[in-house]
C-alpha cells in the first residue's frame, strides 16, 4: 500500500477488478490471480477473450499461467530487476507516453543537489546512517523544498509505514508547485534524468543474469507493454503478496507504479495498478485499522514527542496542497466521533486521550515481546499465527511465555490448541503441564451469523446481512468488543483518575438487538460515515469541519451512509447500470471506482481517445463528468491556476490529477514517504543463493532483521555455510485453502481437495536429490525442519541465474496439525525478516535444502499419515 | 497432438462391476437350473418320467438357490421386490428377473407336484413352463453382462451366450447324472460331455475372436480360473466317458465338470473386472474404431 501511496497519493488499488476487462494488456506478477482471486479473475478472462495479452510472470507455472497468453519464469525475489529492465528499455528507447509524463508526473522536478544515487554509492542512497541503520531522507527532497515535515518523519523511523504511503503529505510545497522544474526533462538533476541514470545498468543481459528471464523476453515484455499503452490502448498491472511479502516489497510496487506512470496508464480504463488484497475486508482492516501506527483514514498515530499538542500534530501532518490540506477537519471529526460531547476545543478535542506510540509495535515485535515477557497478554481474534506467522515455531513458543491468551475463532485452531497439540508438544520441546499460559477460547460467529461490511480489494464496501442467529456461545467481533468495552466502563465507573477518562468518555451507546444484544452494525456504519452540525448523516468528506461541529469515524468512508441510506447495501445488478456500476455497494473515496481518473483526459480535459474515454471536462456544464465519479474537484476547470495563498485542493493546478499528493503529480521519484529509497533498487532477498550482481550493497539496508537465537538467518552467499541451503524456497497459496487454514482445513469439502502438505519440485531437482512423486521429503532451514509429500512437476523448472542452474522449492503454507487436512507448517521454516515500511515478512524468497524421506520423529507420531485417506 | 499419455494417470475409464462372488455362483446355479428344466421337459416328452422327475428336482433346487444369491448381492437387499416394479425390455436384468421368477416358481411347483404327488396337470404345466424358459435362463445372463461397457464382455457379446449355454448344459448334465439312477444316466451323461466339449470350444473361440481384449481371460486371477476350468472340463469329460462302465470315475468326472463350469463363470466375471480396470482396453478399440471411420 505505501508503494501506491507514495507514487499516487492513496494506498489502495487504483482501479476495480471489473475494469480489467477493458485492458489491452494485463501483466500479472507477484500474484496468482486465478488461484487466489478466482471470481475476480473472470474479468481477466474477458479481456483475454477480447484479444488482450495476459502475461503471467512468476517463479512457478500456476493456474494463472495456465490461463495466460504468455508465461515468463523468473527467480523468486528478482522482480525489481525485471521491472527495472522494463523501465530501462522504455527510457532508453523513448517509449514513454511523453505528454502524460511531462504534465502528470514529477519527471520535470529538479532534486536537491545533495542527492546521491545508488549509482554513486554502490547500492546506497545519500543520507545513510550505518549506526542507526536508517536513512536521513532530507537529501532526497525537491530542490529548495522546505524540510520541516521531514523532521517529523525522522523521529518516527520505521513507524511511518501505512500513513506515509497515503500521500506525499510530508512534503510541504507552496502553491502545490515544486520550486524548480525543467519541462524539457533534460536537466541532469531532474527526476526523468535521475531515473534514467538510476536504471541504466538494468540492461536485458544483466536482467537475464539476475532473474533467469532471457534477454529477448525482457525486451519483448517492455515492447509489448509500450505497444499497449498510449492514447488508444492501456495496460494494467495486477499484483498481490508475491510482491509485498519481501524485504523490498514496497519498492516492488513502486517499480510497477513507475512503469505505469511512464506509460501513462494510471487513472485510465483498463490501466492502473490492481493491488489484489486477499482476506475478506483486509482493505477495510487498514482503512479502519487494526494496525498500531495509523488511525482511521490513514491518519498517523501520534508519536511520543516533547511538544504533544494538537496544533503541532496537525502542523506536521497536514500538507499545504492537495486534499491532505484538509487534515484538521478529518482528524478533529474523528475525535468528535470517538469522544462526542467530551471533545471540546478547550481540551483539544480529547487529543491527549489518544495513546502515543514510541517504537515499532508490529506483530513480530509483539512476538519477541512475548518471549521477553514484556507482553503479558494477547487477544488473538480471527487469526492463526501458530500457522500463519513467519517463524511460526517461535510464535508458538512465545505463546507459552504469556500470562494469558484469548483466542476468538470458530474452530479450535492451532493457535487455540498450541498448549496441547503442536509440533513442540509432539517433539517434547514443550510440555503441557509446564505451560503457564491461561488460555481462553471464545467461540466466534461466522459471517453468516452477523451483519457488517466487507471492504474488498477495490475499496468497495459491501454490506452483508445476518442470515441466522449464532449458535450457542458464538458471538461476533462487534458483540465482543462492544460488551468488553461496556464491562470495562462499568468497572471503571466512578473513577476519578484522569487516565480512565479516555475509556469513560468514549461514545459507546450503540443500540443492541435481539436476545444476545448484538450491537447494531448499521449504527456503527453511520458513526463511521459521520454526522453534520444538524445531526444528520453527512454526505462527503469535503463537508467535514475542523471546528468540532462535525463527526466522522473515517473520512475516506464519508458518504457511505449519506442521507441515512446504507450505500454499502445497494445491490443494483450490473446489467442495469453503466460500466462502473456505481450503485452496487459503495467505494471509497466518494464512490470513485477508478482513482486519479482526471488522468484519463488530457491537459485540456479531453479524453486521450474515444476508445479510452472515462472522465472528461464538460465545458458547457462547467464540470467534470463521465463514466465514473470524477476524482477531482468537480467544478475545477482544466486550465485552473491556483492564486496566491490558495490552500489544500485549491492549491493544485487544473491539470494535476493526483490530488492527494502535495504537488498533484504522480511520483516517479518519491522524495518522502518511504524509508528505503526514493526509487526502487534491486536488492537480493535476505536469504539468497547469489550475490547482488548490481551493487556491493547486497540486500535492503533498512530491512528489519530481528536477529535472535531463535530467529537465525541462513548464511548468505559468500558466508561460511551458505552451501548448506542451496535452493530458493518460496511459499504460496492454494485455491482450496485459506490463510492459516482455520476456515478451510476444518471443512471436509475443502480439506479433501488438498488433504496434505506437499512441496513442488522440478524433475531435475527430484533426480538430483532422489525425490519421488507421491513420496516424502524433508525441507530444512536454520529455523526448522519439516516434512511434506512430494509433487514432481515441470511447472517448477529450474532457472539459469548468474550462469548457473538454480532450483526452487515451493510449498503452500496453510497447514498445521489439526483439522481434516493436516501437515507440518511451512512458516516454521521462515525467519522473521521484514520490509521496513510495513513490517511484512519475507515469505516469498528464502533459501533451504531438501532431502528425501520423512522428518525424523523424535517421539511417537500422532495419528495416521496425513493425506493417506 | 496425442503423443501425450493416452489415459488419465492410468485410471480406469469405466467403473468396475460391483458384483461379488454370489453373482458367479448365480451364473452357475441359474444356468444349471435352466438347462436341467429343459432336460426335464424333453425327458418327459420322451416319456422318461423318472428322469424327468430327477431333472425337475435338480432344476428346482438350483433355481431356488438363485434368488438368495442375487438378493444378497444387492446394495439394498430388503428392496429386492423392487425388481418387479417395472418390466423394462431394454434391461436384461429386468427381463431376467421376471423370467427367473417365473421359471423358479414353475420348477418349484413341478417338483412339489412330483414329490407330494398332487395336482399332476398343474405340475406338468409347470414343468413345461420351466422347460421352455430354461434356455432363456441359461443364456440371458450372458446378455446381461454383454449389455455393459466392460470391454471383455461387451466385445464378446456374440460369443458369450454360447459359452453360457454350453456350460449350463454341462453342469446340468453332470448334476442330473449324479442324481439319476443307473438306468437313467445316458442322456445326462451325453449332455454333460457334449456341454463340456461345447464350452471348451466356445470359450476358445471367444477368446481368440477378442484378440487383445482376450488378454484379461489369460492374465492374473481370471486367467487362473480359465485354465482351471479348461483342465477340469476336459478331465471331467474324459472321466465321464469312462464313467459309463465305472460309476466311481463317473462321479469324479461329474464333479470335475461342475467345478469346471464354476471356474469358467468366475473366469468370465473376473475378466470383466480386470478389463474394466485398465484404461487401454476401453480406449484402444475405440480409437481404432475412430481411425477406421476416418479412413473409410
Amino acid at each position, binding site marked *: 500500500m505505501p508503494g501506491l501511496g507514495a507514487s499516487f497519493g492513496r494506498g489502495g488499488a487504483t482501479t476495480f477488478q471489473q475494469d480489467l476487462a477493458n485492458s489491452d494488456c494485463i501483466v500479472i506478477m507477484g500474484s496468482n490471480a486465478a488461484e487466489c482471486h478466482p471470481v475476480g479473475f473472470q474479468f481477466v478472462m474477458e479481456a483475454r477473450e477480447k484479444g488482450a495479452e495476459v502475461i503471467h510472470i512468476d517463479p512457478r507455472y500456476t493456474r494463472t499461467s495456465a490461463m495466460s497468453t504468455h508465461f515468463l519464469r523468473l527467480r523468486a525475489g528478482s522482480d525489481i530487476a525485471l521491472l527495472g529492465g522494463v523501465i530501462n528499455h522504455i527510457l532508453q528507447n523513448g517509449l514513454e507516453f511523453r505528454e502524460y509524463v511531462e504534465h502528470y508526473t514529477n519527471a520535470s522536478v529538479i532534486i536537491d543537489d545533495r542527492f546521491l544515487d545508488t549509482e554513486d554509492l554502490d547500492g546506497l542512497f545519500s543520507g545513510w546512517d550505518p549506526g542507526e541503520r536508517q536513512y536521513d531522507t532530507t537529501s532526497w527532497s525537491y530542490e529548495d523544498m522546505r524540510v520541516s515535515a521531514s523532521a517529523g518523519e525522522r523521529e518516527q523511523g520505521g513507524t511511518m509505514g501505512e500513513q506515509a504511503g497515503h500521500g506525499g503529505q510530508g512534503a510541504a510545497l507552496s502553491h502545490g508547485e515544486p520550486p524548480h522544474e525543467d519541462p524539457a526533462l533534460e536537466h541532469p538533476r531532474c527526476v526523468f534524468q535521475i531515473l534514467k541514470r538510476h536504471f541504466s545498468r538494468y540492461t536485458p543481459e544483466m536482467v537475464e543474469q539476475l532473474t533467469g528471464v532471457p534477454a529477448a523476453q525482457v525486451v519483448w515484455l517492455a515492447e509489448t507493454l509500450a505497444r499497449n499503452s498510449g492514447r488508444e490502448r492501456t495496460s494494467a498491472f495486477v499484483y498481490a503478496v508475491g510482491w509485498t511479502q519481501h524485504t523490498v516489497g514496497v519498492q516492488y510496487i513502486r517499480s510497477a507504479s513507475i512503469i505505469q506512470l511512464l506509460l501513462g496508464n494510471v487513472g485510465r480504463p483498463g490501466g492502473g495498478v490492481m493491488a489484489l488484497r486477499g482476506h475478506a475486508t483486509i482493505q477495510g482492516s487498514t482503512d479502519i485499522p487494526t494496525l498500531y501506527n495509523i488511525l482511521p483514514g490513514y491518519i498517523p498515530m501520534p508519536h511520543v514527542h516533547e511538544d504533544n499538542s494538537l496544533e503541532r500534530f496537525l502542523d506536521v501532518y497536514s500538507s499545504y496542497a492537495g486534499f491532505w490540506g484538509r487534515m484538521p477537519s478529518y482528524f478533529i471529526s474523528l475525535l468528535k466521533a470517538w469522544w462526542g460531547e467530551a471533545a471540546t476545543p478547550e481540551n483539544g478535542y480529547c487529543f491527549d486521550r489518544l495513546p502515543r506510540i514510541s517504537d515499532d509495535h508490529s506483530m513480530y515485535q509483539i512476538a519477541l515481546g512475548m518471549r521477553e515477557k514484556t507482553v503479558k497478554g494477547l487477544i488473538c481474534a480471527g487469526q492463526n499465527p501458530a500457522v500463519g506467522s513467519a517463524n511460526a515455531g517461535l510464535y508458538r513458543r512465545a505463546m507459552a511465555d504469556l500470562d494469558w491468551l484469548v483466542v476468538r475463532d470458530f474452530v479450535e485452531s492451532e493457535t487455540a490448541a498450541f498448549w496441547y497439540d503442536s509440533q513442540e508438544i509432539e517433539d517434547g520441546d514443550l510440555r503441557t503441564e509446564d505451560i503457564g499460559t491461561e488460555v481462553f477460547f471464545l467461540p466466534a460467529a461466522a459471517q453468516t451469523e452477523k451483519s457488517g461490511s466487507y471492504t474488498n480489494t477495490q475499496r468497495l464496501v459491501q454490506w452483508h446481512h445476518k442470515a441466522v442467529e449464532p449458535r450457542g456461545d458464538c458471538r461476533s467481533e462487534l458483540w465482543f468488543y462492544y460488551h468488553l468495552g461496556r464491562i470495562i466502563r462499568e468497572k471503571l465507573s466512578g473513577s476519578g483518575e484522569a487516565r480512565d477518562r479516555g475509556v469513560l468518555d468514549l461514545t459507546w451507546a450503540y443500540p443492541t438487538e435481539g436476545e444476545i444484544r448484538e450491537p447494531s452494525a448499521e449504527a456503527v456504519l453511520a458513526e463511521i460515515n459521520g454526522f453534520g452540525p444538524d445531526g444528520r448523516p453527512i454526505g462527503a468528506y469535503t463537508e467535514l469541519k475542523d471546528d468540532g461541529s462535525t463527526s466522522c469515524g473515517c473520512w475516506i468512508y464519508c458518504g457511505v451512509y449519506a442521507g441515512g441510506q446504507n450505500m454499502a447495501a445497494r445491490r443494483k445488478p450490473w446489467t442495469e447500470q453503466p460500466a462502473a456500476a456505481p450503485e452496487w455497494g459503495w467505494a471509497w473515496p466518494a464512490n470513485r471506482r477508478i482513482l486519479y481518473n482526471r488522468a484519463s483526459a488530457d491537459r485540456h480535459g479531453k479524453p486521450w481517445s474515444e476508445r479510452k474515454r472515462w472522465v472528461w471536462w464538460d465545458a458547457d456544464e462547467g464540470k467534470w463528468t463521465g463514466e465514473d465519479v470524477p476524482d477531482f474537484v468537480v467544478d475545477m476547470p482544466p486550465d485552473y491556476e491556483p492564486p496566491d495563498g490558495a490552500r489544500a485542493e485549491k492549491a493544485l493546478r487544473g491539470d494535476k490529477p493526483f490530488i492527494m499528493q502535495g504537488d498533484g503529480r504522480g511520483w516517479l521519484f518519491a522524495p518522502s514517504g518511504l524509508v528505503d529509497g526514493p526509487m526502487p533498487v534491486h536488492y537480493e532477498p535476505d536469504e539468497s543463493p547469489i550475490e547482488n550482481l548490481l551493487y556491493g550493497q547486497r540486500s535492503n539496508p533498512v530491512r528489519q532483521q530481528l536477529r535472535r537465537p531463535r530467529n537465525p538467518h541462513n548464511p548468505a552467499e559468500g558466508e561460511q555455510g551458505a552451501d548448506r541451503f542451496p535452493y530458493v524456497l518460496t511459499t504460496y497459496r492454494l485455491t482450496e485453502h485459506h490463510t492459516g487454514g482455520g476456515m478451510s482445513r476444518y471443512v471436509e469439502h475443502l480439506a479433501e481437495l488438498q488433504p496434505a502438505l506437499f512441496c513442488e519440485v522440478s524433475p531435475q531437482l527430484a533426480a538430483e536429490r532422489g525425490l519421488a512423486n507421491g513420496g516424502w521429503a524433508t525441507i530444512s532451514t536454520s529455523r526448522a525442519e519439516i516434512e511434506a509429500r512430494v509433487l514432481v512437476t515441470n511447472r517448477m523448472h529450474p532457472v539459469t541465474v548468474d550462469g548457473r542452474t538454480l532450483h526452487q522449492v515451493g510449498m503452500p503454507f496453510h497447514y498445521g496439525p489439526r483439522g481434516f487436512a493436516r501437515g507440518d507448517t511451512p512458516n516454521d521454516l521462515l525467519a522473521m525478516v521484514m520490509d521496513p515500511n510495513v513490517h511484512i515478512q519475507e515469505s516469498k524468497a528464502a533459501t533451504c535444502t531438501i532431502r528425501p524421506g520423512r522428518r525424523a520423529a523424535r517421539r511417537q507420531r500422532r495419528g495416521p499419515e496425513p493425506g493417506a485417506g | 497432438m496425442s503423443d501425450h499419455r493416452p489415459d488419465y494417470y492410468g485410471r480406469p475409464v469405466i467403473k468396475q462391476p460391483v458384483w461379488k462372488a454370489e453373482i458367479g455362483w448365480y451364473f452357475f446355479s441359474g444356468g444349471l437350473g435352466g438347462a436341467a428344466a429343459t432336460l426335464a421337459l424333453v425327458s418327459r416328452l420322451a416319456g422318461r418320467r423318472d428322469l424327468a422327475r430327477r431333472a425337475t428336482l435338480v432344476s428346482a433346487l438350483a433355481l431356488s438357490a438363485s434368488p438368495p444369491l442375487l438378493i444378497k448381492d444387492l446394495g439394498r437387499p430388503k428392496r429386492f421386490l423392487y425388481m418387479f416394479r417395472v418390466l423394462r425390455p431394454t434391461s436384461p436384468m429386468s427381463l431376467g428377473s421376471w423370467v427367473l421368477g417365473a421359471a423358479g416358481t414353475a420348477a418349484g411347483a413341478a417338483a412339489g407336484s412330483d414329490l407330494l404327488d398332487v395336482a399332476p396337470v398343474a405340475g406338468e404345466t409347470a414343468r413345461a413352463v420351466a422347460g421352455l424358459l430354461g434356455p432363456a435362463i441359461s443364456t440371458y445372463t450372458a446378455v446381461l453382462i454383454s449389455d455393459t461397457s466392460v470391454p471383455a464382455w461387451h466385445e464378446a457379446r456374440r460369443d458369450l451366450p454360447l459359452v453360457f449355454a454350453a456350460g449350463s448344459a454341462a453342469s446340468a448334465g453332470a448334476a442330473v447324472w449324479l442324481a439319476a439312477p443307473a438306468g437313467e444316466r445316458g442322456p445326462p451323461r451325453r*449332455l454333460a460331455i457334449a456341454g463340456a466339449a461345447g464350452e471348451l470350444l466356445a470359450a476358445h473361440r471367444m477368446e481368440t475372436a477378442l484378440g487383445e481384449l482376450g488378454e484379461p481371460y489369460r492374465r492374473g486371477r481370471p486367467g487362473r480360473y480359465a485354465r482351471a476350468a479348461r483342465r477340469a472340463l476336459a478331465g471331467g469329460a474324459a472321466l465321464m466317458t469312462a464313467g459309463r462302465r465305472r460309476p466311481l470315475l463317473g462321479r469324479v468326472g461329474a464333479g470335475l465338470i461342475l467345478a469346471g463350469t464354476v471356474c469358467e463363470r468366475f473366469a468370465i466375471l473376473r475378466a470383466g473386472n480386470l478389463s474394466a480396470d485398465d484404461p487401454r482396453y476401453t480406449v484402444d478399440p*475405440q480409437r481404432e474404431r475412430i481411425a477406421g471411420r476416418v479412413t473409410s
Partner: protein
Amino acid sequence: MARFETESRPAGYDGAARERVGFFTDTSVCIGCKACEVACKEWNLLPEDGFVFTAESYDNTGALGSETWRHVAFIEQDVPLIQTAGDGDDGNPMRWLMSSDVCKHCTSAACLNVCPTGALFRTELGTVVVQDDICNGCGMCVPACPFGVIARRERDGDGRAWKCTLCYDRTKDGLTPACAAACPTESIQYGPLDELRGRAAQRLESVQQQGFAGARLYGEDPEDGVDGFGAFFLLLDEPQVYGLPPDPVDPTKRLGEMWGAAAAAGAALALGVAASLLGRRG
C-alpha cells in the same frame, strides 16, 4: 403395480415435458478452482470422499463416483497453450489442461436403459435422475455407463447408486444448477441444450481462431454412440487424455445382436438337450 417402461420422454409426460436442458462445459476457460465440486457437494449434501493425496497434479479427487458428481481433472503437458510464434515464448512450452467432468445425461442413456427397478428415469427436462428411494443397489448401471460416472455408495451401508441429478431440485424451479452458478468464469454453462449447441459451435470457432491447439467439441453430435450428450464439452486434447472414452457407445444399442446370439445359443441348448435323449438309456 408393475409398469411396462421404456425411455419415456417426451411422450410419457403428456405435454408436461419441457425444453431439454443440459451443460456446455468450456474447458478453455476453466481455472481449476473446484468451486463446482464444492458447490455440488454443499447443495446435494454429499459426504467427503476420503482425504487422500494422490500426487496426480492438483487432482486429489480422482474420478466421479457416488460421492463426487463434479470432478476437475488436471493434465500438465509440455506444449504451448496457444500456437503462436513470438519472443514471448519460454524455452519450455507448457500448458495445464483443466476440465470439470460430470454425468453426460446421455440422450441414449445406458444406465437408464438397464435399470431393472425403474429407479433411473428421464425427467421432464430431459435429464437422467436416480430415485434414491427406489434403487436397490443391483449394480447393473455401474458397468453399463460408458463414462464410468454412476457408482454404488458402499459406505455407511448405503448400497444405492448415486450420480449427478443436474440439480433436478433446482432446475425444476427454474434455478441454475449449483455448479454452473458457482463457476466464476462461466466454464460451466447451463441452459436449453439446443442453444448451448449453437453457442458451442461458435465458441469452437473462436477458440480455434485464437490459436488454442487441439480444440474440439466432445459429445455435441446427435449421431454419436449415445445419440449426443446432454452435458457436452469443449476439450483441448483427445478425450482419453482427460480419462474420457474417445468413442462412447450405449451398449443397449446392440441389444438386438445380443438377444439374437442368446436365442441362437438357447436353441442350440434345446437341441443339444433333445439330442441327448438319443442313445443308451443308462
